[in-house]
């Protein structure tokens, strides 16, 4: 007798895709990349249908995959930038045209100047509302490291918000 899938991927996809894309966009800051990240996360789960046997753990699994894949995407982006033309000529997406209030924009720009681990901790804590223990499990670090990283990240964020905008931070913003 054929085994039933451990979790229903289409159901997961319908239920969590938007939330995961929103999580990813806070990590990579453009919707196209965020969608790719989430697709990769679901593709990883599709390749390993037995990876998660408990459906209640599927979202946590996908969240880990999104964070890991977003980090890889940023790494690839850094590498690619060395060989890319200085201006992005692709047309704006509808989402790109939406306006973020200046007060929020300042925070988001500063957020993207932080180290990836710091950004991840802040996003998981202040947007995903995860506990320290959940963040520790998601990022595979200790609770103490979560606490110290969050503390340092807030200091760095505040500092970055008061720093003059540099060409590189504008590039991040795009």
């Amino acid at each position, binding site marked *: 007798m054929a085994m039933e899938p451990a979790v229903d991927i289409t159901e997961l996809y319908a239920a969590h895709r938007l939330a995961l894309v929103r999580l990813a966009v806070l990590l990579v800051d453009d919707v196209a990349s965020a969608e790719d990240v989430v697709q990769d996360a679901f*593709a990883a789960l599709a390749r390993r249908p037995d990876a*998660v046997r408990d459906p209640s753990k599927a979202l946590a699994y996908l969240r880990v995959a999104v964070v890991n894949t977003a980090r890889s995407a940023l790494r690839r982006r850094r590498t690619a930038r060395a060989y890319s033309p200085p201006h992005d000529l692709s047309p704006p997406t509808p989402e790109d045209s939406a306006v*973020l209030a200046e007060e929020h924009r300042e925070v988001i720009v500063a957020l993207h100047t932080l180290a990836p681990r710091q950004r991840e901790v802040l996003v998981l804590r202040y947007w995903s509302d995860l506990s320290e223990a959940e963040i520790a499990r998601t990022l595979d670090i200790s609770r103490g490291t979560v606490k110290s990283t969050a503390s340092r990240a807030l200091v760095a964020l505040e500092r970055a918000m008061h720093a003059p905008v540099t060409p590189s931070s504008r590039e991040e913003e795009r």
Partner: protein
Amino acid sequence: MSTTPGAPDLEARLRVALAARADLVRGEDLAPLATATPVRRRWPTPWVLLAAAAVVLLVLGVVLQGVGGRTRSDEVAPEPDAPQLELPADVGRDWKADDLSSPARLDLDGDGRKERVDFLAEPTEDFDGRVRLQTTVSTTGEQAYGIAELGTTIGTSALDPIDADGDGDQELVLYFDDPSAVGGGGYPLVFDLRDGLLVRAVVEDPELLVRGSVPVDGSATEHFRMVHLHDYWFEQGTLWSSRSVNAYAEGNMTLLRPETIVVDAWRWALGDDGVLRHVEEACLRQGLEASQPCGNDTENELPSIVPVAGETIGAGGRAVFDVGYRYTVSVEAGDPATLVVRGEDGRTLRHDLAVADARVSTTQPTSVMSDGASFYVTSASDPSYAQVLVQDGDRLRALDTTGDVELTDDATTRTWLTAGGALVTAVAEEEGAWRAWQWQMVSGAEMAALPSGTVCFDDPSDPATVRRC
């Protein structure tokens, strides 16, 4: 919960900004991939099964697009719940033990008698083949074997045995050496006797069970990168590993770390499924020789930036430098004054000092250069002046600086030489914090500053008042 004094406003602002940014992503803006058909948790009829399967294929077909040519998703995704053990192939019965290898002796089957495990090397031109682990189990008299890849077949020997699954027998621990790692790197390999085979345990989070320095993504600059320090060790038959909480600058063959660092530590246990997992966590203050629990002190030790070497000589002064390359120095009055160096090898070097009222430290700036004569020069009439002179054959050369840090001494950038010979510059940051840097010679004519930590001062004009922030 706030983690930083004065941060609640920032935390609230961050929370609102993140929500606002996330809310800009609307469902209707996403590529139209979502399923349009409600999907049930069970498949009631073959027709529904087929229809739903088509939806799954449609979704996954698009999901899988674009994956090729990049990092595979399953390489960055978390591991499955149940990692698979790899059983060893029965190869290498005729391989020979390397002359420098030592058999291991440990109680693999828990009967109180130690088995002898021989390490037979696969013959290859570069001595980089596999190693057959071979023993006779004392309780059964049968041969057991395993296969290890250790990077080299030369000089195989075992580390301390452990009882990672707490069942009273011992597991064999070998190690993979990474000769390319600064300060030594690599990781342990644990072999458990399972069903007559020496099977290598699968490590659930292998990045936490390594030794050496692991770079922080995106931290590399021309002259240094930031690294976390990892280690593993054995304690009364258990395996522990650690990772430094802070990252430290590594570059120019140097690692800038305080003598004692704070680390997260984990004890590793072997499960029935053959997977090695970290099961206990601790905070340790790790010194160069020993470690102790953090207790209430989880903050890092201050970098070595004091005491200040305050003694200098001016025109008419003379000093002896007798550590390493021995030489004497005198400052001859004149306009400009001249530094005269007489080395123990009979060489005499003369150098015109390019500043009025020059003061030459009687401590050598060994952090910059110690393979010959070197000097830290300041000026009594120009407090901002700072310069390093190094021996270049039969002359002295003033080093240029490279990088973002300026070699000067003013209200926001303080520079001094420590009694230990470290040339330190502290640059003021926000909220009274200062970032400390230590200078290193990075080419024949240049020196660069490597970050050594963030500190605060009760009185920024007096480095002796340094404290944690």
